């Protein structure tokens, strides 16, 4: 594989950049693989990469219905953070933060990781207490957390509404300085390019129609491009999890919901951090191009439509304007929607299943993008070793029947509870 470097950039400039290698090939499916990963999104591509890199399993295929990186990894708000209170989420995400920091070097692909810090705003004394508690839990798990008072927040984001007579005055906030953003497409493409170079077959435009299971063991999959035998199969299909689960006669603690995001017209640099509104569900950051990237609540009903409705967008942006009034002057450049695999406790599932050789990675709710490296790493471990890693041991499927829910915010599919 051609290395991406300044020297190769200069060298290829002499041939008008016409002789670069393809970043990944377009193979036809082989008859059999050791591992088949269904879903060519961030998590699937990362899983294949770590299978090859950490476990020397390269007879791997990624089966993607559309094109790689065309789902949620191509339509998120690129936020990376590990500001969780519960051990399961905190340790898992902080392990991921470490992978994020090394990712550009590791993949030889600039993912533009920008650790610009995230600030969760607090709007009451009670919320400040809750943030202090969460911050302490984070620090006990080795995650950086800083509790900011009103004046300190004002210094960082003076454009927020600090006037006296607002409905939700800013009392302070909890900041994770090491959190940030990354270029989402580059993450998918970087993993794809490296996985491909290590022998992984990336098979696009190939829809999974069914599974071959006999005697409680997975034998292979049936696809629109023929049958493929596989010793192990991993599901990494986010919002399509329920559709594939139905083909396996499984009913999961997952509902597929619609989540919207939007960007404004590009403006000059105004916001250095990611900021979240504490009295509702709204968050904003500024992209390198200058657009304000904004998101918030689910539309609130089951949907596979990948497009949203205006009432939710209006609700979310009303919160945004309450937090930063200048946003009301911006023109909206574009909005989009993705379909989320909402688990019932708001935490993900990375686990084995009752079918031998079939592994499940789903339930990422609002937080799939930041989990990409850690999810791929632990899922690859779970598949290769046929046992969960201690990092994803809490993300098991049977926690719903045993009562060991990870209720980070108590937010699952029931958005109206919050």
């Amino acid at each position, binding site marked *: 594989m051609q290395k991406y470097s300044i020297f190769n950039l200069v060298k290829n400039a002499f041939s008008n950049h016409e002789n670069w290698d393809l970043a990944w090939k377009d193979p036809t499916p082989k008859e059999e693989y050791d591992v088949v990963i269904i879903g060519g999104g961030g998590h699937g591509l990362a899983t294949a990469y770590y299978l090859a890199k950490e476990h020397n399993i390269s007879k791997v295929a990624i089966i993607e219905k559309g094109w790689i990186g065309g789902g949620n990894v191509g339509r998120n708000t690129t936020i990376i953070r590990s500001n969780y209170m519960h051990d399961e989420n905190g340790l898992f995400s902080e392990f991921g933060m470490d992978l994020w920091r090394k990712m550009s070097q590791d993949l030889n692909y600039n993912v533009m990781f920008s650790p610009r810090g995230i600030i969760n705003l607090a709007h009451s004394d009670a919320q400040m207490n809750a943030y202090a508690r969460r911050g302490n839990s984070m620090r006990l798990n080795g995650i950086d957390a800083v509790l900011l008072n009103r004046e300190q927040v004002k210094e960082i984001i003076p454009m927020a509404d600090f006037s006296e007579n607002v409905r939700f005055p800013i009392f302070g906030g909890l900041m994770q300085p090491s959190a940030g953003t990354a270029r989402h497409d580059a993450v998918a493409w970087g993993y794809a390019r490296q996985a491909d170079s290590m022998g992984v077959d990336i098979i696009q435009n190939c829809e999974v129609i069914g599974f071959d299971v006999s005697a409680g063991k997975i034998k292979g999959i049936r696809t629109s491009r023929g049958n493929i035998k596989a010793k192990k199969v991993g599901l990494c299909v986010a919002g399509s999890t*329920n*559709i594939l689960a*139905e083909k396996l006669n499984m*009913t*999961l*603690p*997952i*509902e*597929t919901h619609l989540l919207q995001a939007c960007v404004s017209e590009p403006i000059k640099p105004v916001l250095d951090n990611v900021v979240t509104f504490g009295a509702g569900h709204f968050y904003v950051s500024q992209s390198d191009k200058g657009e304000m990237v904004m998101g918030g609540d689910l539309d*609130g*009903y*089951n*949907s*596979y*439509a990948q497009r949203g*409705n*205006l*009432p939710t967008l209006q609700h979310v942006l009303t919160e945004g304007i309450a937090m930063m009034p200048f946003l009301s002057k911006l023109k909206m450049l574009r909005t989009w929607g993705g379909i989320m695999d909402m688990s*019932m406790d708001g935490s993900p599932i990375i686990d084995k299943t009752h079918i031998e050789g079939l592994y499940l990675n789903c339930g990422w709710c609002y937080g799939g993008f930041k989990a990409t490296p850690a999810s791929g790493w632990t899922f690859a471990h779970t598949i290769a070793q046929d046992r969960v890693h201690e990092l994803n041991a809490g993300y098991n499927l049977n926690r*719903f*029947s045993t009562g060991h829910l990870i209720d980070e915010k108590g937010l699952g*599919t*029931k958005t*109206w509870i919050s």
Partner: protein
Amino acid sequence: MLYINCPHCGMRSQNEFSYGGDASVKRPELNKEVSDQEWDNFVYNRKSLRGKHLELWQHISGCRQWIKVERDTATHEIFRTFKADEEVA
């Protein structure tokens, strides 16, 4: 914008409604021993169908009645609405 035909009040915008999830889920019977699996299926496990989906909505800013709505989860098209106690054929 979704428009939902409330069987009590008529056609109203989605702003007046709150979503209540899959209407085909049945609570286990009270007067018998309930297995863990049955509770699981009632509380957590959902089919989350792509296509026609029978679901509960509450007309929270209207008559406050719970209703059933038959809606396509891929296109958002609404086919039929029912009163909460109406049997759906």
